């Protein structure tokens, strides 16, 4: 059971391993706080939609299941949108159009189709939670790199007058500002995925297996 939770974090990480949900990843990764907010929103939508879909899987006719899933997902996205507008206007304007676009995030519909539509309630909730956490972690990683190098700051919390923001001396006066632009987002994602590929290839290189075989 616990495997359903952990698979989304590393081995089947939706963003960095399966390359799903890239549009919001790039769009909101300019500021660390925006990445956390987006991540929490997606976790909420994923867990709730997975739960409802796994409960309703017998009621929804097979032919119209995709539109059915989309309506369920869009309902929870609207809830997130209204909650953010009410409780965190800063985050609401920071995420902007990417909040409604959670509806077409391939991760959410992908988990509904691949997992929640076929499994029972508890595994579906855990699957949604794990995938959501995996999404949030990779988003935070990319936003961490982009905000520190691109602006020389790290924003942890922003609401009204309370702002928790670290300013890195030296970097904040002369940041690598190209990383704060849309082009920088594409560069950072390209390099992070290449780094993960390098680790994957290093771990599966043929020499290692041969040595392992010899020691056994």
């Amino acid at each position, binding site marked *: 059971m616990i495997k359903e939770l952990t698979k989304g974090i590393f081995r089947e990480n939706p963003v960095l391993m399966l*390359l799903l949900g890239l*549009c919001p990843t*790039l769009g909101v990764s300019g500021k660390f706080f925006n990445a956390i907010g987006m991540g929490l929103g997606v976790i909420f939508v994923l867990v709730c939609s997975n739960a409802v879909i796994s409960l309703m899987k017998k009621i929804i006719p097979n032919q119209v299941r995709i539109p059915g899933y989309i*309506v369920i997902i*869009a309902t929870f996205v*609207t809830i997130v949108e209204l909650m953010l507008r009410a409780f965190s206007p800063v985050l609401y304007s920071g995420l902007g*159009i990417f909040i409604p*676009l959670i509806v077409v995030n391939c991760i959410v519909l992908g988990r509904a189709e691949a997992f929640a539509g076929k499994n029972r309630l508890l595994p579906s909730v855990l699957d949604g939670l794990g995938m959501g956490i995996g999404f949030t972690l990779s988003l935070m990683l990319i936003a961490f790199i982009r905000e520190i190098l691109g602006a020389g700051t790290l924003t942890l919390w922003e609401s009204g007058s309370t702002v928790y923001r670290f300013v890195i001396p030296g970097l904040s006066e002369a940041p690598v500002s190209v990383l704060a632009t849309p082009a920088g987002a594409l560069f950072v994602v390209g*390099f992070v*995925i290449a780094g993960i590929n390098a680790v994957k290839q290093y771990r599966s290189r043929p020499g290692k297996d041969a040595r392992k075989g010899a020691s056994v």
Partner: protein
Amino acid sequence: MMNLVVIFFSFVLVNNFILSKFMGLCPFIGVSRNRESAVGMGFAVIFVMSITSVLTWVIYHGILAPLGIEFLKTIVFILVIASLVQLVELVIRKFSPALYKALGIYLPLITTNCAVLGIAIIAVDENYGALESLVAGMSGGIGFLMVLIIMSFLREKLSLEKVPEPFKGVPVAFVTAGAMALAFMAFSSSMIANLFPAE
């Protein structure tokens, strides 16, 4: 009239959906490997985005706004897009088998293209009129097609180059797209405003 020209250039060059808003990245990375599919996908997107932006304008200003239920726009728009894509597929298959052959397999993929839902929401947020929405949708699609075609040329060249092993495939496509986005930063909204001054 000037207004429409400014919207056109702003969506094609300055606020290009792929390069500055990151919408439609999944199909962009997916189909840009092959020129033919890039062109097919691009035209299908132009087609659907133009119709969507007009239809959602009518629904928003004709139904949602008078009833005061604007907050339902996300749910309504995505349903409109999903059914529209199905309808377009049926109509094309019936009346133009040649066009269906060219665009058919790309149409179902468009429902989950965020650029389509994106243009509908942007047009409503920016308070565009019906004609402006149509131009915005069409030019957003044209910008998408243009970048897709450029990218397919770049990837063709790249496939002949020696790329470091970990960068092969998707990572190098991202870095290339980043370089292209950097070049497109030369187009700024102030440049458009200078070229086409408002009367």
